[in-house]
């Protein structure tokens, strides 16, 4: 028996007692379903813009996002969105193709970006992190163990996921970074 989108999303939202968590659904051939989305795979997301936390449904066909609109079951926004939320599709499928797809590198005094591989970039970055840390590290100051990497900093994180923020926080502190700040301060 086919389920409607609404029912399916409800189903997938079974509470802690249930075995099934999450909001990914596969819908095909539902009768009342818009043609535009027929056969699309759907998943839920939360808007990346302001702090209201509106829910959206992302429809995907052949691995590509084809539609993003408000999630009617989300209790805060009930399917509604502002101009930005409605434009999220253009981040997923940017019509002017400004999304970055490759690592860009700018050498000292360089006048343009150069493309390098991830492998190369990670090796170079790790070397710089280590050299800067080793050079600026202060183990003790005024008799107190301080373990500071004084010339390193990390900035940003308000647009990242919680899990990412946590890793940034852990990464920065274990390196010895005190210059750790993000958008909440500004």
């Amino acid at each position: 028996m086919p389920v409607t989108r609404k029912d399916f999303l409800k189903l997938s939202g079974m509470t802690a007692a249930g075995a099934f968590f999450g909001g990914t659904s596969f819908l095909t051939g539902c009768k009342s379903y818009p043609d535009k989305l027929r056969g699309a795979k759907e998943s839920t997301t939360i808007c990346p813009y302001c702090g209201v936390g509106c829910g959206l449904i992302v429809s995907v066909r052949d691995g590509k996002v084809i539609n993003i609109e408000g999630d009617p079951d989300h209790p805060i926004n009930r399917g509604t969105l502002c101009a930005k939320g409605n434009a999220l599709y253009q981040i997923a499928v940017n019509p002017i193709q400004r999304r970055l797809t490759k690592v860009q590198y700018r050498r000292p005094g360089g006048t343009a970006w150069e493309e390098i591989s991830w492998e190369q970039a990670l090796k170079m970055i790790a070397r710089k992190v280590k050299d800067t840390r080793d050079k600026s590290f202060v183990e003790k100051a005024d008799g107190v163990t301080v373990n500071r990497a004084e010339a390193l900093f990390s900035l940003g994180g308000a647009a990242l996921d919680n899990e990412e923020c946590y890793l940034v926080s852990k990464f920065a502190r274990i390196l010895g970074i005190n210059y750790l700040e993000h958008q909440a301060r500004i």
Partner: protein
Amino acid sequence: MTNHWIDIKNADVILIMGSNAAENHPISFKWVQKARDNGGKLIVVDPRFTKSASMADVYASLRPGTDLAFLGGIINYALQNDRIQKEYVVEYTNASYLISADYKFNDGIFSGYDGGKREYDKKTWGYQNDDKGIPKRDKTLQDPQCVYQLMKKHYARYTPEKVEQITGCQKESFLKVAELFTSTCKPDRVATIMYAMGTTQHTVGTQNVRAYAILQLLLGNIGLAGGGINALRGESNVQGSTDAGLLWHILTGYNPCPEAKKHPNYEAYIKAVVPKTNDPMSLNWWSNRPKYIVSMLKAWFGDAATKENDFCFDWLPKAAKGTPHIVLFEDMYKGMLKGGFFFGTNPVVGGPNSNKEAKALEQLDWLVAIDLWETDSSIFWKRKGVDPRSIKTEVFLLPAASSVEKEGSVSNSGRWAQWRYKAQNAPGEAKSDLDIVNEIYEEVKALYAREGGKFPDPIVKANWNYKHGEHEHECDPHLVAKEINGYEWKTKKQMASFMDLKDDGSTACGNWVYGGSYPQAGNMMARRGQKEGPGGIGMYPEWSWSWPVNRRVAYNRASVNRNGDPFDPKRPVIKWNGSAWKGDVVDGGAKFGPEAKNPFIMNAEGVGKLFSNGVVDGPLTEHFEPKESPVRNLMNSQAFNPATKVLESVGGEFGDAGAYPYIGTSYRVVEHWQAGAMTRNLPWLTELVPDMFCEISPSLAKKKGIVNGDMVRIFNKRGSIQARALVTERIQPWNIQGKEVEMVGMIWHFGAGCAESGDSCNNLTPHIGDANTMIPEYKAFLVNIEKA
């Protein structure tokens, strides 16, 4: 937010001040409208007639930077007219507490001030204690040293006339606001406050928020449905990133970051950061702090963290000084920083005095920027007016996945942690920030393991494993989320909540406030339960997960009287039936009845602080002018907040009203977001707002010969920008001390990069900030304007 978005519908009165929610948090208005449909009234106080103002029942205009005069006026109105919730004030606030006889206030200065350091010694701001060490109280509120009487005297100076003279808001409009807002002093009438950066981005930002807290405590509005003070967060996860401790002064879960001077070792740290109380009525929740810190250290350093080595406490860096954003960039400017990371951030547009911040970046040896796009900040080396060949900084720009190209959770303003899913692969070689951090860590760790170096232990011995196998390429966000939630170290069994955490190293927990988000049963943040929940007040307890412990309304113990009956029976948050609590997850644990414990469990006294020694710039609020102001302070002879630090290096960067006679202020529009990379690259949004623009009144336009659509130049000592002028009746000058004071309002979304570019408003904003937080004074500074 103490409450959450849907809860706004429960309010009888909504005060939007220091925020333009209709524009910047548009969906909040769904719930504002619901409240209005139910008979609720909306008050908007704003320097501009905003979209929010256009929906208001009562609108009042005030000059930027005069919130404390306005709010002081409302506090005075409440106290003089006895429009307070007496039972709540006596039982749940420190109104009845007696303050040290040495406390004094004179001409804008509280006792303990050191003018040379611009600092207070807060000793005289404490309570008088009895012989058991418990604060003395006078529940009749008659003692001249009780907080209530001190406040009455302090705020008596904030008369409606004074409010008008300072703010420019006409007395009648002010009184309308004061009357309507304080009408919620009735126990079953509730008001909420929605605020944002219009409140915090001042040299008195923290005191602005304090004034809200004082008002809401006096009116008995905190803890109730439809009440609270609600900071509307501007980014999808700025709540979560703060919870994660991405600030110089905190570790995860709001535990202070160790500072070398204050906390030379673990013992001294614990002594300093764990508050004490002798009051049996106080739960003093922060007494649990050692459990949270030790569990975090265990999660970070694993087997290396033992009782014998203080769980590797000394492996954490100890700060030499405070390094908030402004200080970070001043130090970078001086060449003290050599390299670092930008995680989806664009300070060349978003930071204050952004010309200087762009120049500061030139001092770096290297910069790693991680973003979806090229941003203004990752291309500082090719900005207008500089020769790239003379800039030595190496820049790595790493392509990142967008929110629909990865899996993980974000926490909204209402503290709801909501899970989202990956819908498509990131374009090209882009990766999630999670994988990027992990891969950089692995490379750094490999280098230290191979070569050694300065103190490699915290890096090579870190408990860090978020892949299912060595050959997996991607991190599993679920493994990270499980560590954040916490688990028993030995059995790796997930914790049910932070109640089970221990300070002996037997538990690991990345961030205690998220304890319970991912228990054994599974990922609570992914829940989609549709039940509205108890009380019919829209708590949706089975939708996602709210910190702490899925509590939807913080300080909910304050919503009931000492018998446990709701002050507002129509909209009960919790209720005590004599032996158990019903409703929301009660604050402070279910075993204590309403008579047993005070409701404000995060304060050592257990009650709300009308008078507070928790801030650096005064136990009560006082109006000061912004650092740059066109008029003198009428309230006292201090020009600006006497406890705000002025960094030596920014001394010459301020101007006066002679050269720069107009108030500059900055704000956002619905069509764009923050520094603009996420919107200036989207044609649907640039169609709506394609250019940098400013808003000025018709009177200023006339004076300067500017017509709508003209290109204008706005300038001050820090910079000069061009913008299109929107001449609008929505902006009106104020009459202050006999002179017309005009304002130039600017959006701050534009910069030199991205598909649509324009000048950055923040070239004009100053490197000075709030006395407590050092959040920059973006909302009131001085500029001049002319036709370009």
